[in-house]
């Protein structure tokens, strides 16, 4: 007798979503155009005909400009509407992508179960039939539910697309754009004034921002992207939206000018360099192929013209508002906004290491202060870049940067969300200062009460000023000041008190920081200072002890700790200079001896040759 057991067929593969979070770049482009139109409209409204025009010409010009302003504002309103719709669509796509991923996992599982049931049936006996039929029925139910959910997914995708298409269609003519502008009652000037009146208090700003409607937020991002993108207390995602708008504006304007061979001024070229560096830093995860779309990259600071043209940029890998662990990396000498891609590479490497434990992380390359910097080709440009670099011998920039860093971290604390559904706490927030950035971070801690959970000073020339005598003076939680230095990192030999020093060496045993293990770096000599630079800039290298320890710190774990230095940092520098003098003298002697040998051997060869010649003459 034959018994039939109805086993469901395999569930077909679920097609990939053609729309991805990359669609966010469309939103940025739309918002950027809206910003340009907003600027034009505002300028046209504020500026009538030139003051010295009179009569009919003046009246006609005023009329024409008013008309252009009105039409431009209509276009601005149209772009603003579709930017909001596109933003909503991207959020929906991100959500549906997660839903699809879940369905793909369920499909894999149910197909495996079908295969397992078929195997069981092949090996079964008559006694198993009832049980197998029950399992097949249960499996069919699972398959049916899964297929229903897959159908629902595609319905939701279609619905999201329809909403977006409708939003575009609603403002695809001049009159519809002007209607949208007429209905737009957002008073951007009043909102701007409200924000300004909050006096930079990040908690108050965050609370105020959360009271705004989506349309009001969008209007501010379009009218004032530079303000919204760089105000501490505005949520990271909104800062990113605004700053990307500014970035796109700069790239478009300056690249178009360059491509038109109009010639960029030196200032414009510097601006373009910094804009391109910011773009490169943002693209680091995307240049992996297939792209790393899991990492939410945020442009948290974008002020390419700040600090006399050095620029300020901060790029975050991961969202600090939602991450379990957040790290702010403060770079040091030779850095400015043009080097943000290299800083981003380090931050992204730390991010990739920090999320391996399954927790979420955000690592931020924060070039938000004016570090002593210069470009090598301009090293002799005095008082230009040369003067900027000269400022490394005092703490002025570290003191000023300390305030900016503390304010930035306060902003991160204000926007950090507590997930009431899961009970997740706010981020474990670490600040990592490298080189002169460690002095800056120490000033942020001592002078401005840096609101971090831990502070790590690596490759430090000094822990900031005459008032910091030990780790406890930095005001961090007990046991949460870490320090590390490569033995052959010459910058770490500079820690000292006094007019010229930048504070104590934080890796000294008696300073009281937990000193993490760091690879020593290769010995170097005066004629190979590149190795010295390598030693100073290798704390984020893959496979380095320092990267492993920094990862532990970012994850809130305890790193591998060693005893601190017992030799004074300056004595290490003096020892190096003394050994170097001996080395150079010995090298000179060796070279002189070799030259003498060469002369002797050359002369001997000549004499031998002549002897051979004469011997040849008289055999």
């Amino acid at each position, binding site marked *: 007798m034959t018994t039939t057991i109805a086993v469901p067929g395999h569930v077909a593969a679920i097609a990939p979503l053609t729309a991805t979070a990359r669609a966010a770049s469309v939103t940025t482009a739309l918002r950027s155009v809206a910003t340009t139109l907003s600027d034009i409209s505002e300028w046209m409204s504020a500026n009538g005909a030139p003051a010295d025009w009179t009569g009919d010409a003046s009246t006609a010009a005023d009329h024409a400009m008013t008309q252009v302003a009105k039409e431009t504002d209509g276009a601005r309103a149209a772009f603003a509407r579709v930017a909001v719709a596109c933003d909503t669509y991207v959020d929906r796509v991100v959500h549906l992508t997660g839903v699809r991923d879940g369905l793909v996992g369920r499909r894999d599982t149910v197909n495996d179960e079908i295969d397992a049931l078929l195997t069981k049936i092949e090996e079964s006996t008559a006694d198993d039939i009832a049980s197998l039929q029950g399992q097949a029925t249960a499996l069919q139910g699972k398959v049916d539910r899964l297929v229903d959910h897959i159908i629902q997914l595609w319905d939701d995708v279609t619905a999201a697309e329809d909403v977006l298409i409708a939003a575009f269609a609603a403002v695809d003519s001049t009159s519809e754009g002007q209607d949208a502008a007429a209905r737009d009652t957002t008073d951007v000037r009043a909102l701007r004034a409200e924000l300004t009146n909050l006096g930079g208090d990040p908690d108050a700003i965050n609370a105020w921002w959360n009271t705004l409607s989506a349309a009001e937020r969008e209007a501010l991002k379009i009218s004032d992207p530079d303000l919204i993108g760089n105000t501490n207390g505005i949520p990271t995602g909104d800062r990113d939206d605004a700053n990307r708008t500014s970035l796109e504006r700069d790239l478009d304007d300056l690249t178009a000018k360059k491509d038109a061979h109009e010639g960029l001024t030196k200032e414009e070229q510097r601006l373009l360099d910094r804009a391109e560096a910011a773009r490169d830093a943002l693209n680091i995860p995307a240049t992996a192929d297939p792209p790393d779309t899991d990492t939410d990259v945020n442009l948290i600071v974008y002020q390419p013209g700040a600090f006399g043209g050095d620029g300020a940029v901060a790029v975050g890998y991961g969202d600090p508002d939602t991450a379990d662990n957040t790290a702010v990396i403060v770079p040091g000498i030779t*850095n400015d906004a043009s080097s943000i891609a290299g800083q981003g*590479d380090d931050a992204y490497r730390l991010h990739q290491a920090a999320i391996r434990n399954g927790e979420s992380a955000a690592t931020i390359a924060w070039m938000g202060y004016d570090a002593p910097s210069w470009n090598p080709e301009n090293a002799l440009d005095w008082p230009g870049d040369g003067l900027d670099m000269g400022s490394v011998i005092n703490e002025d920039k570290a003191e000023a940067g300390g305030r900016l860093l503390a304010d930035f971290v306060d902003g991160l604390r204000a926007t950090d969300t507590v997930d009431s559904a899961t009970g997740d706490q706010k981020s474990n927030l670490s600040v990592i200062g490298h080189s002169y950035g460690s002095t800056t971070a120490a000033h942020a801690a001592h002078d401005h009460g840096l609101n971090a959970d831990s502070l790590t000073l690596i490759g430090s020339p000094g822990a900031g000023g005459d008032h910091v005598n030990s780790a406890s003076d930095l005001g961090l939680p007990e046991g949460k000041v870490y320090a590390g230095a490569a033995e052959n990192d010459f910058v770490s030999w500079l820690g000292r008190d006094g007019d010229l020093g930048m504070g104590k060496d934080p890796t000294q045993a008696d300073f009281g920081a937990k000193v993490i293990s760091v690879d020593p770096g290769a010995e170097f000599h005066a004629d190979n200072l590149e190795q010295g630079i390598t030693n100073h800039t290798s704390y984020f290298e893959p496979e380095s002890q320092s990267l492993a320890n920094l990862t532990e710190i970012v994850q809130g774990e305890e790193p591998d700790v060693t005893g601190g230095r017992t030799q004074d940092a300056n004595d290490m520098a003096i020892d190096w200079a003394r050994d170097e003098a001996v080395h150079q003298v010995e090298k000179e002697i060796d070279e002189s001896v070799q030259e003498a040998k060469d002369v002797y051997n050359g002369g001997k060869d000549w004499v031998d040759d002549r002897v051979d010649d004469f011997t040849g003459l008289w055999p």
Partner: protein
Amino acid sequence: MTRLLLAVLFAALATACAGGSTTDPAGRGGGDRDAEAFKTKMDAFVRETLPKLQAEVGGEWGGFTARFYEKGGNTGQWEYTAGCGTSKPPGTGEQVLDEVEAVLREQGMEITRPGVTSDISARKDGIMVIVFRALESDVESVSTLKVEFRSEDRLSSSDDFAETAGNTELMK
């Protein structure tokens, strides 16, 4: 004394950064340190090695984008790096890593399994390959395996080659 030494060190730092020497320090990878020469070498190595990795390891691989980064600020020291990943390669975590190790060993690379910030580290002629599972908990299966080829030593580029090279799509 310290004041003088500090001034000398920073002056020397400026000189070193501006100099762009192409010397190879003793005892390190042994590869070219000129950015353009190294890029040529590593690009060829990736083009030879990656297809073998793709064939042996499986999963959903993409292309491979390489680029230069200036390290530590405007120091004149560069690294050349290219990263990608494969999603859901068949096998357990250990099997996948063993397959990767076998391919890299066949290419003459020296292999270590550091297991801290990565799973495999391989070196040959100044080229370094870092391999890691995106999640340490990927033991029974691997969600994403990341592979990075990079320069082991810092590179120099006195002719702006590294700065202007842009991205290179190695497998397209």
